[in-house]
């Protein structure tokens, strides 16, 4: 209905007010991060002129540059592995109707249900015994395995709806199954791959507990861990802390604002399942 009457206007005002309320904490966050040390006036007022001293201090003291690098390596590494591995696994699962295939799919689906806490400790000890703790590889391995069920699910559901014609044509032309997959099937999965990459990257980037456990005692940190340790040390100096917080979420917010349409679509596409 295209009736923009006074009622719709009232709704518009109301929604804007609610959104401002939601944005209020972020306003406080940025506002305080730009204050010089020791400024104790109300967090609601803007202090002029703003200072970036907090940012440079926090950057060095929290070793954020290094943390961003470590987070990036882990995120890119695990997302790449999980995309390749899950899409490949989805292929026979989507195409075959044999009982073994259906049971294997069910096995993967089990992982969607299991909270990770149960596996947490045994895996920790296993990683420890394999000397994978303290290294980025351990985490790449971890996230790859953890995200397999969800990604296999997404890929299989999508692939089931794709007609087999393309693959059959490829095999007729002499492709081995692997080549057929690489050149024909995988490109067809691009929409799902987009969603998988987005959802996984955000999850891995933001994860806290496992990097905390696995990397403790080393100088490697992911962003969440770096923030956590930093705040633990400087908790009384909120301006400094806030500068660190802002820098901590800046990367992901920048990516979000640049790609919000795809990101939101990726999150809400789960409706099909």
């Amino acid at each position, binding site marked *: 209905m295209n009736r923009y009457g006074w009622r719709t206007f009232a709704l518009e005002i109301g929604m804007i007010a609610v959104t401002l309320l939601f944005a209020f904490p972020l306003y406080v966050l940025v506002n305080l991060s730009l204050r010089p040390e020791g400024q104790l006036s109300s967090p609601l007022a803007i202090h002029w002129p703003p200072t970036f001293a907090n940012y440079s201090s926090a950057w060095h003291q929290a070793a954020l540059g290094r943390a961003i690098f470590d987070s990036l390596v882990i995120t890119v590494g695990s997302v790449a592995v999980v995309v390749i591995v899950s899409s490949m696994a989805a292929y026979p699962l989507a195409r075959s109707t044999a009982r073994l295939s259906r049971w294997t799919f069910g096995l993967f689906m089990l992982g969607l249900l299991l909270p990770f*806490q149960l596996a947490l400790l045994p895996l920790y000890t296993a990683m420890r015994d394999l000397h994978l703790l303290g290294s980025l590889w351990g985490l790449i391995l971890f996230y790859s395995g953890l995200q397999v069920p969800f990604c296999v699910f997404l890929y299989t559901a999508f692939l089931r709806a794709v007609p087999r014609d393309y693959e059959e044509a490829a095999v007729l032309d002499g492709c081995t199954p692997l080549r057929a997959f690489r050149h024909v099937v995988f490109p067809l999965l691009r929409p799902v791959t987009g969603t998988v990459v987005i959802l996984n990257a955000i999850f891995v980037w933001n994860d806290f507990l496992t990097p905390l456990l696995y990397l403790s005692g080393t100088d490697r940190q992911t962003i969440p861990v770096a923030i956590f340790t930093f705040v633990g040390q400087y908790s009384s100096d909120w301006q400094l802390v806030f500068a660190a917080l802002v820098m901590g979420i800046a990367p992901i917010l920048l990516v979000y604002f640049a790609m919000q349409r795809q990101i939101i679509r990726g999150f809400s596409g789960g409706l099909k399942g």
Partner: protein
Amino acid sequence: MIDADFEVVRDEAPPMSLARGATLVRRARAQLGVGTSTWWFVLPALGLYAFIVLIPTVRGSYYSFTDWDGLNPVKHWVGLDNFTAILHDDAARGAIKHTVLIAIAIMLIQNAIGLLLALGVNSQIKSRNILRVVLFAPAVMTPVVVAFLWQYLYTPDGAINRALGAVGLHGLERGWLGDTSLALWCIVVVIIWQFAGYSMVIFLAGLQSIPAEITEASAVDGAGAFRRFWYVTRPLIAPAITVNLMLSIIGGLKLFDQVWVLTGGGPGYATDTLSTLIYRNAFQFGEFAYSTALALLLTVFVAVVSGAQYRLLRSQEYA
């Protein structure tokens, strides 16, 4: 989408007889099924999955019935001792209560707010696109960062009390996270703030899948705004409702980051959840077996709740 490599192969394929073509198709079909050449595609994923999730889960389930301490390779079967200990442990019972409370509160309130936001954003207002982007933004932020931000807001001298004071509501100022009766709800607020946008987005997808003509028809049929929603919109977004309720309750049961950062389980043990309890028992007290037993309990919880809820909600959907 089919790349150049494939095209070249196509061009070089020699013409073939009908019979030979038929044989190849049959073989191709057989190959593409399970059995000969592609079944091994599953192995890498299966291997990673087994190593990271399945095997540790099985081991964990087993260890919860032993006296495992994480170091000593020898474990003794102790049967249900760990579980009876849980029942007798006040901290554990409290944690269970808190976990359930938080999960239910989140499920109900976050989705109610998310639905209202979705209805607002789905209307004719001009700022809908910007509002949608802003409201969803917290959902992608690092939970740890969000938690620290709110921890500050909740401090007695923090922005919330200051804001209340600024509008003259000094009487509403509180100790927030330090107040044993309020702390749990403070945590719930933080989660809702972060994820209401997420619920909203899923509801939006559901709302936008309803053809406009149908809501218009119901208006012409005499239904005002509320009745349009109740009789037409609500049944047609049932799948979105299902997804949202399930995601929020499972997420709520497993919650760790925010609780740990905001209160660490405190004040005292007033906001301890199963997840924080598991962490503390394992990495601060070294009680690996007890911790794993708690984890098994949590797993059973989640399985039962998801199963029941899924069945209940699916029956509500019309198609």
